[in-house]
């Protein structure tokens, strides 16, 4: 990796003699084998966030926390840093694992005190465009969001002040904070800012669906039919069949930042946004989550109640629960005249699942830039 980077740089200096380049590369390779991660040259300068044009430019980067290469580098270390938890047991990555599109595969997650979280861990992808975070949208920025798991006693359970003190005592951090913020001060604000910078780089834009949208992939018949159902709303009087998923989960990002009650319960145990607003119309209302990498992020829903995508489709097809706050997009939405659920046929369910599988971005979950940086030191040695 690193050598590649130097090769690229060196290629620009065409005046250097070939022998010179080779000699330089040779000594570099020798030198590298003795290096540890922290002694690697740390890239600096503004970080270029690269994404497809159809994602749009309505991105969310606060003016007081521009994304820099050194900030992302520090943020990545902190995302995987167990010293940020009481007892050094957990890091963000404990509940947000790259191979599962940054979820943890559990219905509810265990914190440092072994108490379970009240809601399902969320996948972290394309947060650059998100403006309301958590299942109930209660945090307005990634910076504000990160402070919650860090200090919540049932998650990482350690105040930001103690985290800052612990980091100050770990060799390499003061110098890194200096590189990012201009001086060696370590505090809660700087910790969450760096983590947020790293999270903004978690861009997923190379699923087969993305490839299809840029004319680089031809979906098979099953996928094509699934895509059509996903986008079409049912009109049984006209004989048009559909599943209308795109009304809430549509667009190139399969995320539209909406909040709805999708009919899981008539009387929800977790009242969702109503807990914040006190409004009955918000009862059982939660974020419509991204469907990107959905095949990797089971179990599903805010409480992880469904283990498979089949169970999710069965819910929309056959088990929508009526209530006053049920989303108007799901009321009387059916392929049968007068039906209260979609009533999909068995083959239509398979087609929808084939489409949902198109949303898996395998380059995202294997991108080395998002992985645990400390594992890279181990493999370098």
């Amino acid at each position, binding site marked *: 990796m690193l050598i590649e980077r130097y090769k690229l740089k060196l290629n620009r200096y065409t005046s250097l003699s070939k022998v010179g380049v080779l000699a330089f590369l040779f000594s570099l390779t020798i030198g590298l084998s003795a290096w540890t991660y922290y002694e690697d040259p740390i890239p600096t300068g503004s970080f270029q966030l690269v994404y497809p044009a159809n994602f749009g430019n309505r991105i969310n980067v606060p003016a007081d926390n521009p994304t820099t290469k050194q900030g992302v580098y520090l943020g990545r270390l902190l995302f995987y840093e167990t010293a940020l938890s009481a007892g050094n047991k957990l890091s963000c990555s404990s509940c947000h694992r790259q191979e599962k599109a940054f979820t943890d595969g559990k219905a509810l997650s265990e914190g440092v005190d072994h108490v379970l979280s009240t809601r399902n861990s969320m996948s972290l992808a394309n947060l650059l465009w998100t403006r*309301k975070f958590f299942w109930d*949208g209660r945090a307005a920025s990634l910076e504000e969001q990160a402070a919650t798991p860090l200090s919540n006693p049932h998650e990482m359970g350690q105040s930001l002040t103690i985290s800052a003190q612990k980091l100050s005592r770990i060799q390499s951090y003061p110098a890194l904070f200096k590189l990012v913020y201009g001086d060696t001060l370590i505090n809660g604000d700087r910790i969450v800012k760096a983590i947020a910078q790293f999270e903004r780089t978690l861009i997923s834009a190379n699923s087969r669906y993305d490839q299809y949208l840029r004319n680089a992939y031809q979906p098979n018949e099953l996928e094509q039919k699934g895509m059509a159902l996903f986008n079409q709303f049912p009109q049984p009087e006209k004989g048009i069949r559909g599943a209308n998923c795109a009304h809430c989960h549509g667009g190139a990002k399969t995320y*539209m*930042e*909406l*909040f*709805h009650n999708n009919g899981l319960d008539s009387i929800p145990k977790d009242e969702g*946004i109503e807990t914040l*607003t*006190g*409004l*009955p*119309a*918000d009862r059982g*209302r939660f974020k419509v989550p991204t469907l990107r990498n959905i095949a990797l992020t089971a179990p599903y829903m805010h409480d992880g109640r469904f283990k498979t995508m089949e169970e999710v489709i069965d819910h929309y097809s056959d088990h929508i629960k009526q209530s*006053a*706050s*049920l*989303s*108007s997009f799901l*009321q009387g939405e059916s392929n049968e005249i007068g039906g209260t659920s979609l009533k999909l046929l068995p083959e239509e369910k398979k087609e929808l699942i084939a489409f949902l599988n198109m949303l898996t971005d395998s380059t995202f979950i294997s991108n080395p830039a998002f992985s645990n940086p400390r594992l890279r030191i181990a493999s370098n040695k």
Partner: protein
Amino acid sequence: MKKISLITALAFLSLLPLLTIAQSQQAAVKITGEVATPLTINNEDLQKFNQTTVVRKDRDGKDHTYSGVPVADLLQKAGVTMGPELKGENLTKYLLVDASDGYQVTFALAELDKSYTDRVIILANQVDGKPLLPADGPFRIIVQDEKKPARCIKQVVSFKIAFAK
């Protein structure tokens, strides 16, 4: 005797949380941004404005009569640059409408102003003489004669006026 008063006291106490919630449950529309006076308008406040009706077809294909207040009147009350002041750089201002489900739409101020158009855009709170259904209301924008219903945004919670940048 004592027992009875204890029971009534307990019954009252157990109702208390319900009562306090009921008070904080009033839905309202907040008007902020490029305004002289930020406003919060609830159903009662809305009654104090001149009422207008707009007839629009719904998804059922039938005409429905929506009643409410022209959005322009609400903005005027908040001191937005409407009417004679809507010229020059003020023409680059827009209204961003937010719904409680996160949905958002915009209108250029000139689309709302009677000196520019006869088309009326209202903040409705009733349909066919009845309050809007919870999934649609209590406040909904109704755009007269617009072909697509997508800007007839439901469950409106806020208006924000801003300059296009």
